[in-house]
């Protein structure tokens, strides 16, 4: 994902973040880059039917 300054401003505005200053946009770019790096560490293999961890659990499960 690009974190180029004009691109990040456009992307921010598209999701309603219209009041971010240049400093805030730089923070958004940095945080977005960190999130992308973190994604690389989500390395657990998933089978097609692996379900999310639901909050509700049957009694005794």
């Amino acid at each position: 994902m690009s974190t180029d300054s004009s691109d990040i401003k456009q992307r921010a505005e598209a999701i309603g973040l219209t009041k971010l200053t240049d400093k805030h946009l730089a923070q958004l770019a940095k945080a977005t880059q960190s999130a992308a790096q973190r994604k690389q560490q989500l390395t657990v293999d998933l089978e097609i039917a692996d379900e999310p961890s639901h909050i509700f659990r049957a009694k005794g499960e």
Partner: protein
Amino acid sequence: MTDLHYLSMAEASALLRDKKLSPVEYTQALLDRIDRLDTQLDAFLKLTPDIALADAKRAEDEIQKGDWRGPMHGMPYGLKDIIDHEGLPTTGHSKILEDNVAKNDAPVAAKLRAAGGVLMGKLSTHEFAIGGPCFDLPWPPARNPWNRNHHPGGSSSGSGSAVAAGMLPAALGTDTGGSVRNPASMCGIVGMKATYGRTSRRGVLPLSFSLDHIGPMTRTVRDNAMLLNVIAGHDPRDPGSADVAVPDYTAGIDDGVKGLKIGIIRHFYTKDEQADPEMAQSIEDAAGVLEGLGAEVREIQVEPLQVYAACNRTILLSEAYAIHEKWLQERPEDYGDRTRERLLGGAFIRAADYVNATRMKRKLIDGFHAAMDGLDAVLTVSSMEPACEIDDDDKVDLTYPRQARAPFNVTGDPALAVPTGFSASGLPLAMQIVGRPFEEAMLYRVAQAYEDATDWTSRRPPVD
């Protein structure tokens, strides 16, 4: 008698019950200490002396009449300022909620009130339990009583600081990626993140619905078990609350560790991350103490720390962004710098990545429980190093990814932070003891045996 301010809950409750200590006298002694120390430590956002003295007077009258409600009766405590107490501000340490007044008690606060506790005030937190320490908020960050130039840990920073400094015997914190256990570790006290669903989260500002926990923070293991006894229990109005019977966590606490099988996860702090040598050695020493008491300790392997961390942060930031989106759109300037940057990290996480992180969470839970097969508890590190200086931004930012607490927010298993000594520079060291769901009593049993064999929880910070 020990100085009133360093009485354990167990000691104080016995004196209160036996009418050898007046709740009003005890409360006033702590209010005087807070008045003297908190100008240096900034642990409290709002002190509530009128409420405290009224609660204490009521407790005194009831105890005098023979109506002792239990170990919390007449006991001072504090609440992290994301937990509602009717009629008091719940600010989240944020300008955004500066004028927010709670309409009701959170169930955990109501339980403390019903047990006869004495509310002393609302405690400093990282902003919305995620952004801190920040120096650009309406209130300063809390300081570490072992060295006020150092970070007390967070996000339940005021709770850690106040309990360690003898301003309170007990406080509640919250924990989404380690926020009870980090300040407990950095301030040299005991902090429990109980099983997900063990304590009600209702009436507490949310950070991540899937990962939020409420937990007790105290100076001793027994006190922690006593406080969990009060706040644990099913809340049908909290959709994450578990309908599981609550045992007496102090029963069996003195049974020792002889014959117990305890795992140790070394790769978190020797391979996945390299812990500070003093911190790593303190975990080895603790394992040696438990072996000396008759436990069998063996090393186990689980997924690398980074996998748990990535899962935790992906879920946490996605959910936190959803919670804060409106304010980030309308009032971004009202957040502290560090908070804003952390929350914005959730803006562009794709829905598929969030869902896959929740799917991985389930696999990580199953994998951890398989690794615990045949074991009673597991030891590992909490923080990779002692508290850094509070104004060293680079080091503060590094402490968040370099920790081993988030795995147990992912698994939802109970995890207890316990002091394991002090660095050469005089700062606390700590470990975690982790267990199976709803087996908090086993963690207290292991921790009590370790505490009895060491003297770490009896040391006091240089604040007097």
